[in-house]
């Protein structure tokens, strides 16, 4: 039995788009397992711009960002079987690899503190709050809308902690120091924020 019809929402559009993306991504990975260069190019063209944006945002060094992204994509090329369908979407997995490498690179250079201080002084000018950016894009527009909306729905104090951790590569203790908060508060805001984010993203394709 069917329930009453309802009007389609932007969220529905995002679900449809991401469903399609996920199906295509998994197909690209399947082809990659056979050494298909075109599939590799396809994956890079689809997610390279977002990966570079993420690596640049964290490292703040364009040349280092390219190295990070290249390393992550090469890891996919060498071992596409590392992707586990049961653990989420291809794009999240890919961005996770870029993110981990970027954070590691920043910390390896032992420049995180100075860079973070620079960020504090310039973030308002250089990087807008992602949740508040005007959406005017050519790739993955539905996905971006949905994730930005989800992030934007978080209470400011939770969103701030998540952004400092994810986009600026700060550890929880650094954030506590930066915001003059007890470490326990940072941890609880992280947990609550991520719970809300998961809930908001639930229903989008994985």
């Amino acid at each position, binding site marked *: 039995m069917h329930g009453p019809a309802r009007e389609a929402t932007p969220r529905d559009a995002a679900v449809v788009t991401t469903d399609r993306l996920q199906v295509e991504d998994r197909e690209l990975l399947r082809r990659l397992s056979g050494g298909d260069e075109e599939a590799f190019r396809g994956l890079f063209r689809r997610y390279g711009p977002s990966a570079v944006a993420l690596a640049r945002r964290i490292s703040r060094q364009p040349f280092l960002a390219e190295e990070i992204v290249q390393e992550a994509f090469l890891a996919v090329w060498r071992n596409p079987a590392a992707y586990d369908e049961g653990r989420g979407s291809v794009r999240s997995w890919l961005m996770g690899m870029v*993110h981990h490498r970027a954070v590691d690179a920043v910390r390896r250079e032992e420049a995180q503190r100075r860079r973070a201080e620079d960020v504090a002084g310039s973030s308002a000018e250089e990087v807008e709050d992602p949740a508040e950016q005007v959406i005017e894009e050519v790739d*993955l527009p539905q996905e971006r809308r949905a994730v930005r909306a989800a992030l934007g729905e978080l209470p400011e104090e939770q969103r701030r902690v998540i952004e400092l951790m*994810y986009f600026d590569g*700060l550890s*929880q203790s650094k954030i506590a120091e930066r915001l003059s908060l007890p470490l326990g508060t940072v941890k609880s805001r992280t947990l609550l924020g991520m719970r809300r984010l*998961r809930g908001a993203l639930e229903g989008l394709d994985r």
Partner: protein
Amino acid sequence: MMDHEVIEELLAARALGGIEPADEAELERGMTAHGPDCAECGRLSAELEEAAGRLAFTLDPSPLPLGMEERLVSAATGASTVVPLARAGERPRRSATAWRAVVGIAAAFVLFAGGWLLRDLTEPGGDDEAAFALEDAEVVTFEGEGGSLAIAYRPGVAGVYIFGSGLAAPPEGRVYEVWMIQEDTPVPGPCLTPRPDGSLFTYVDAELGTTDTMAVTVEPSTCPDAPTGEPILTADLTAV
């Protein structure tokens, strides 16, 4: 045994890259105690990693650096994408007048050659050899960050002067590398290091040929044959 709420809190921090080392060790111990078949642990981990990964898409995508796709594919497949540059022929002699004007812009500087003919134009006797008439040369400035850079050359004639000022020193162990983009393929040029006052002036015995864009990237001091970084300066030669 660690309860799932604590595991969730630690997994959230790990997914965002902000977990403290001590907490990570504690998480490992907790997860180990629950065992690899703990369905709730697996669910929490997957969902939090998924949510964190999606955050990347809140950023506006960045334009890909010139040639990055080819460099990546080359690195993956082991192929080379570098096209050898046709080396220049004889360089015509010019009057010294204009050359002296250029010398006034930036003092000469000995640069790493890497197979390129580079000359220190302030060397004694360098005047005659480097007498290079720039009065009828095209001057194209680079755009980007990191200082002012320009080239002077005559289309179809071998010989390019590169001069700049206010150039930041590249990071330790790195140099600036000049590229000539020909049909989307970056052809390597000289590797450069500005002098301490940020100025730079050199001559490259090359013919730009079909080059439509020139670019400068920051590279390892080994001067790779293909760019590994994004251009910090670019010059459009198509209007010349």
